[in-house]
């Protein structure tokens, strides 16, 4: 490794309970050193003796000059805090260097990470087509499946970001580009690694929140990586990254076919081909990919993982970092980090601000103490906010889900043809599943996930609202739910809640009341909205 270290740290340097040993690796954004735990006050016997210390240069320059860097660091820390999965590198702690005498390091963020033996990129360089390739690919794919299932996209999967543990197993690392899915896609910073970037993201449009990516971008990168590990060559032809990028563009436009290496074993050929489908929609979903990769690798089915990961609240972090983070959040332009609502205020004063976790997301509109699963809060609140009709509130969507399925994401009722957390009938869902208002090409098939169900509920309610007559009796929100259950025509014809749905409507009304915060300002605000913005309706 001849390139200069992004963050030079002298051997023997002390940070927290750790002493810096040998350098391990450096990337564009930070440098990693081996750390050895030395006895210190507040020593934690639960920590291992050695760890990898990732130094990120948050201390240098002024905040406004390092905006994107800080954003990248925040993403990584956030993901490590929220996800603890067997195939993802673990983070033990985060520290901030306090060393006024050493301005080059003062203020740097240090992630204390699980120590790995090496990276897949080093393995492939030393041993092209490694014998362990298929088994490693199965583990990498398992890591991707864990990430995707938890609602995240990695955004920068490549051999250097796959670490190998002392027992030879693989884990995913480097989550600077990772992003949490919002519905069907996520926003990541505008960085990418050319050889692993799917063609639709080459020169893609970039909004103020960054670049929109989907889990299928990781699936593409996995296809490239698998081809590289198994054949020691890239799937797209060309001697330089630029030539391969142009080949990728030509392939995506349909002017060129994909010509995979003849060395690729047959079982893997189809897998790589399905990962490298021209458009994101044609790529294989991660769950199916994992099953096929495990079959091809001859490894057993991975043990079933928890269906949804609950966020961790008991965070171990220093207060120094909280403050630093508050300043960062305030300096981020746009919405890069959507969690950091209300942190610090525009003056960046930080102070005692608390981070908004999913458990408190949208707390001023949706109560946090009534058993609404935290995992769905974001989907519920954001789906309600996507609708301009003031009646479509987070509390209404939550009450509807409670009445429909008791928040059971796996509900399956083939007799009534209703599935998932919102009891969608697939043939109806088809019209609401897409966020651009266009019906899906095909009727979705169960299982139907909450991330499909809940935004579609918001869209459907938003469509129903203006179609309900103005002279109906009863709470309009309850009428909306009744129309969701039956149809707006039936509710209009009945002049209110149809008798057959009265039990359902009563339950919705009950939960609606329970989930709405008892904050007079908020209730009054909703009432005022309803008053002011109820458009004149045609009878």
């Amino acid at each position, binding site marked *: 490794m001849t*390139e200069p270290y*992004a*963050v030079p740290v002298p051997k023997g340097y002390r940070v927290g309970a750790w002493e810096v040993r040998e350098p391990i690796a450096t*990337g*564009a*954004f930070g440098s990693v050193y081996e750390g050895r735990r030395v006895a210190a006050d507040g020593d934690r016997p639960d920590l291992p003796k050695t760890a990898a210390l990732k130094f990120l*240069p948050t201390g*240098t*320059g*002024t905040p*406004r*000059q*390092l*905006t*994107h*860097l800080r*954003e990248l660091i925040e993403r990584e820390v956030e993901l490590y805090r929220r996800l603890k999965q067997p195939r993802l590198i673990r983070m033990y702690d985060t520290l901030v260097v306090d060393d006024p005498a050493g301005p080059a390091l003062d203020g740097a963020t240090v992630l204390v990470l699980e120590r790995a033996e090496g990276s897949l*990129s080093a393995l492939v360089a030393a041993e092209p087509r490694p014998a362990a390739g298929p088994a490693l690919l199965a583990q990498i794919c398992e890591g991707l499946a864990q990430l995707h299932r938890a609602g995240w996209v990695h955004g*920068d999967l*490549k*051999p*250097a970001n796959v670490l190998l543990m002392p027992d030879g197993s693989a884990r995913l690392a480097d989550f*600077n*580009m990772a992003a949490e899915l919002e519905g069907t896609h996520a926003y990541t*910073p*505008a*960085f*990418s*690694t*050319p*050889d692993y970037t799917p*063609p*639709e993201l*080459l*020169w*893609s*449009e*970039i*909004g*103020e929140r960054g*670049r929109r990516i989907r889990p299928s971008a990781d699936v593409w990168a996995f296809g490239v990586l698998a081809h590289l590990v198994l054949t020691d060559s890239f799937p797209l032809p060309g001697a*330089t*990254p*630029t*030539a*391969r*990028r*142009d080949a990728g*563009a*030509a392939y*995506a*436009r349909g*002017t060129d076919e994909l010509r995979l290496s003849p060395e690729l074993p047959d079982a893997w050929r189809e897998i790589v081909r399905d990962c490298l489908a021209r458009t994101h929609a044609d790529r294989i979903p991660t769950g199916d990919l994992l099953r096929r990769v495990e079959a091809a690798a001859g490894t057993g089915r991975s043990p079933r993982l928890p269906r949804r990961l609950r966020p961790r609240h008991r965070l171990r972090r220093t207060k120094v970092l909280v403050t630093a983070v508050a300043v960062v959040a305030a*300096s*981020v*332009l*746009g919405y*890069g980090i959507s969690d950091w609502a209300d942190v610090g205020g*525009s003056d960046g004063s930080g102070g005692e601000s608390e981070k908004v976790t999913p458990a408190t997301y949208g707390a001023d509109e949706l109560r946090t103490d009534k058993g609404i699963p935290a995992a769905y809060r974001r989907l519920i609140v954001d789906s309600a906010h996507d609708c301009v009709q003031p009646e479509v509130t987070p509390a209404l969507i939550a009450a509807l889900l409670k009445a429909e399925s008791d928040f059971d994401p796996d509900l399956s009722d083939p007799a009534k043809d209703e599935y998932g957390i919102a009891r969608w009938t697939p043939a109806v869902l088809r019209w609401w599943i897409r966020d651009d208002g266009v019906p899906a090409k095909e009727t979705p098939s169960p299982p139907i996930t909450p991330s499909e169900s809940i935004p579609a509920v918001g869209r459907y309610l938003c469509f129903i609202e203006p179609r309900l007559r103005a002279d109906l009796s009863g709470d309009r929100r309850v009428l909306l739910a009744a129309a969701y259950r039956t149809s707006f025509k039936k509710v209009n014809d009945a002049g209110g809640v149809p008798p057959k749905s009265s039990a359902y409507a009563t339950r919705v009304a009950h939960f609606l009341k329970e989930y709405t915060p008892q904050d007079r300002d908020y209730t009054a605000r909703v009432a005022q909205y309803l008053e002011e913005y109820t458009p004149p309706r045609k009878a």
Partner: protein
Amino acid sequence: MYSIIVVPPPTTEDETDRTQLRLAPGERLGFGRSAADNDLTIAHDGVSRRAGEITAQGAFWILSNLSREQTYVVENPEGAGEHIKVGPGRLDAPVPFEFSRIVLPAAGDLLPIEVWAPRHDYLSSEGGLDGATTAPAFSVDRTKRYFAVLAALCESRLRGEPHAPLPTVDQVVDRLRPNWPAASRTSVQWNIDYLAVKLRLKPGPETADTGPRLNGKKESLVSLALRFDLVREDDLVVLRGPLREPSSAAVSGRPAR
């Protein structure tokens, strides 16, 4: 996924919003007088029936001169007279400029076809060329006028007033005139529009209804540029020094150390 934009010659004097044709790598655009043989018809008697072809070739483009006796000149409008000549019959001549103007001599008139290559890559300070390094998605040339325009737009915010109102186009013109005497409202506006293309700015929802709104575009450009550190405080020297000074300053949005 286009990499080249072709702007045909203006058809009427007063037309302000000229068509833009976008070419993806490998795509070819024929131009000439005959409507049947070409993708871009240039209705002028002095132009050959099949006058030439432009092909996007990755991030750059190549020009074929299909005329029998006319030499085409490809100028770099920001290059202080820099140009190349493509003689009659020459096929697939590579053109290295980010901005180009093909000048077609046509019976005493000179018809300009503009070609932009906004995807030119520049060496990123960290990465190198190995394709395995995480690289920024933007590549800007700090010696170009668009960079000076961007710097002028970002100046007040970079100087420590994060909520300062953005300068108006006229203020940008005044700011740049000492180093760029020919700066005008139109040319600054042109550069702002080009930056939106170059930085692949997603058109805001408002543009669909009411047409492009300049304020939204400027605001988005500045917030994108600051967010990804395309312009930093030390880049503001471009507002002081002479603009067209070829130097090693052509680097992309570099990761900070």
